């Protein structure tokens, strides 16, 4: 027996009642390193073996609560801190709307975590090299028999005494279980060609698949159809039109809506004579004119047209709008200045619509009248 190392002495029983009895006797006899093997959970064995209640419930509680906490933290970071977006008028931290995902992550963390805790922490699985596996004993207790196994490293282990105990309990078979010496003596090494080869192969397959799918597959038809549409991008040469422009110029003589060309560009007298203000002096028009005047005119002409520029000498101050000359000008003449500019004053034809220009003139008239009011105005 020198070439064999005993792992445990086992006994096989035929009836569930016998195994309960055996479990009680074995644990009463003071053995600590023993186990009961049954093909299915037999009620009452935990009590007979005097096992403390399972503590897995606590790990489920801890894992579940950490899942909830992690979910809240994740959602808070993503939709409150990192990139807050208003959706449907909800607050950034819309707790009721987060409850479903918090619940799902709690369940996920608790159930997967508890199972993994049981398998890898409580049971120390995977353990396919355990000496009890693939023995005659295991072949019986995994089908319809109930077994006791007392390990050889138990401090009270004595083969003859245990055999006697087993016989007294009415065991149908007593089987010794030995270590598989080949496995016990085997030395695990990391630098093994087989293991390293598998590692390298896994790395190549994983990285190759990822590279192929992200860099090649996504650019193949039909995956690429959204990126490569038959349309022209800015600055791209057109193959269809002979002039090479992809954007078509408007038809000769076409005028954009509201964009009538100004006819009196170098004829201010004609403008003064022909153009007249189409707007009436209503509150609405005056308010529009005031807004536009304050935006475009007031920086140089001042809020009240007195030529008090706010530009602190960085641009020449214009004359006052309250001079006799200005008061005598027709609306058309002022319009001409706004349209084409005068001296250093630039043209405002692109900034303001025609309507806005006329409204601004109404407002200038109101300003002029405020400093030179007639008695009838009172």
């Amino acid at each position, binding site marked *: 027996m020198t070439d064999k190392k005993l792992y445990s002495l086992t006994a096989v029983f035929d009836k569930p009642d016998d195994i309960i009895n055996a479990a009680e006797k074995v644990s009463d006899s003071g053995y600590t390193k023993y186990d009961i093997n049954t093909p299915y959970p037999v009620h009452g064995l*935990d009590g007979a073996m005097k096992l403390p209640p399972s503590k897995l419930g606590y790990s489920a509680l801890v894992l579940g609560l950490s899942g909830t906490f992690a979910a809240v933290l994740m959602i808070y970071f993503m939709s409150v801190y990192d990139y807050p977006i208003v959706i449907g008028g909800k607050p950034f931290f819309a707790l009721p709307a987060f409850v479903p995902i918090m619940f*799902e992550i709690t369940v996920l963390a608790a159930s997967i975590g*508890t*199972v993994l805790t049981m398998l890898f922490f409580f049971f120390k699985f995977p353990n396919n090299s355990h000496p009890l596996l693939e023995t005659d004993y295991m072949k019986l207790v995994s089908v319809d028999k109930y077994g006791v196994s007392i390990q050889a490293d138990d401090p009270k282990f004595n083969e003859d005494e245990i055999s006697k105990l087993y016989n007294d309990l009415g065991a149908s078979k007593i089987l010794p279980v030995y270590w598989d010496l080949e496995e016990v003596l085997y030395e695990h090494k990391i630098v093994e060609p087989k293991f390293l080869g598998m590692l390298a192969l896994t790395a190549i397959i994983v990285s190759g698949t990822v590279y192929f799918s992200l860099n090649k597959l996504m650019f193949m038809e039909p995956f690429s159809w959204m990126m490569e549409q038959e349309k022209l991008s800015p600055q791209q040469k057109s193959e269809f039109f002979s002039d090479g422009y992809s954007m078509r110029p408007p038809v000769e003589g076409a005028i954009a809506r509201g964009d009538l060309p100004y006819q009196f560009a170098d004829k201010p007298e004609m403008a003064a004579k022909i153009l007249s203000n189409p707007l009436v002096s209503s509150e609405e028009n005056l308010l529009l004119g005031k807004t536009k005047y304050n935006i475009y005119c007031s920086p140089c002409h001042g809020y009240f047209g007195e030529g008090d520029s706010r530009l602190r000498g960085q641009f020449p101050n214009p004359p006052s709008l309250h001079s006799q000359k200005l008061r005598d000008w027709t609306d058309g003449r002022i319009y001409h200045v706004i349209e084409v500019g005068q001296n250093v004053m630039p043209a405002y034809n692109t900034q303001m619509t025609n309507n806005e220009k006329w409204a601004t003139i109404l407002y200038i008239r109101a300003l002029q009248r405020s400093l030179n009011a007639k008695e009838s105005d009172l």
Partner: protein
Amino acid sequence: MSTVDYTREISVIEGQPPLREIDEVISKPLETKPDKKFYMAISVTLTMLLIGGIALGLSFYYGTGLWGNNNPVGWGLPIVNFVFWVGIGHAGTLISAILFLFRQKWRTGIARFAEGMTIFAVMTAGIFPLIHVGRPWLAGYLIPYPNQHSLWVNFTSPLLWDVFAVSTYFAVSFIFWYVGLIPDFAALRERTTNKIKKVIYSIGSLGWRNSNRHWQHYEMVYLILAGFATPLVLSVHTIVSFDFAISILPGWHTTIFPPYFVAGAVFSGFAMVQNVLIFIRKIFNYEHIITLKTLENMNKIILLTGSMVGYAYAMEFFIAWYSGVQPEQFTFLNRAFGPYAWAYWIMVSCNVISPQLFWFKKIRTTIPVMFVIAVFVNVGMWFERFVIVVTSLSRDYLPSSWAYFTPTLTDFGILIGSFGLFFTLLLIFTKTLPVVSIAEVKAVVDGSQPSHKDH
């Protein structure tokens, strides 16, 4: 009428078979070569799968314009099928978790198989939202991960809740199923003489050694998993119903949707499990493990949930009238008497009327009749989702945008393919893994538990 002795518990496994025989019966399909019937069955399901594959390939290449989805009915058949398949899955979790918590021992014979159906049904269901987005290879954006756009998903959207609910449901169902399989892998490992099989079973069993020190924690973890899976299964279809109920469309915007959807899911799931089990128990000679009593119990649950669904239909009509909301009233009249009346009345006759026959014990225990009724229930539940999705969308608030939805051949090809996928996976399952839990069935055979004579 025979008298029943209520002081004795009725045994869930008939005839007190020796435990060794249970091992043999359950592992027989794994140890024998598939017979002709199996090849015939799998060739049919693979053909269906191929039809679905072709329909999907065409849809990817030419785009989703091949489907019947039009402007008001943007959801169309893909979402109908999604809700249908997620619902089918619910029976498995109900059997393995809720009936476990209620200590219903008759569940042991059918739990493993029903859990397998859950997993396959959720896998099938998962295809539909992915293809419905049109470019399923971009579906990674559904997951909140730090991407190059530095954008996150919208946590207030029911569609995102769906992503989390369905993937959690799949993960938890899968782990529940695997935990149940570990002792059976160990039993098969000790049994088999085939070297390759031994390696596979050893990996699956993780070195399980039937130790009672392990069984103790194992039973605890099973209880915990059942405790978590119970609210989970209720939450999944609740969240699926939120996809509808959170919107403001008449016919969808109702608070009855979550319980109504869950009842409907269990209803259709049980019908599907019953249909498949009738074949399984016959083909593999499991009549004494999956007894007639088990089938009768399932029919009772079909009757219960069918009545709940019928109540929900009636309550929807009542609330539409009682609320005084005109669009709501129009929607329900339109459902029953509008252009989709044919679908509505198929749904009502299959879902509300046909399960009421289960009030008769004779019908509950006659296999061909209950099979036909369960088929009707599945047809009816598919049409229920069709009615909900299509009628509300096709006629919403704006009459100028109303349109009639007609599914195309491609739509039906994908539907056929989904059945093909589901049944192909089931057939492979029956030949590769024990479809009945060996350890659980042994534990409920008469005489397998101690008599406690000394107590």
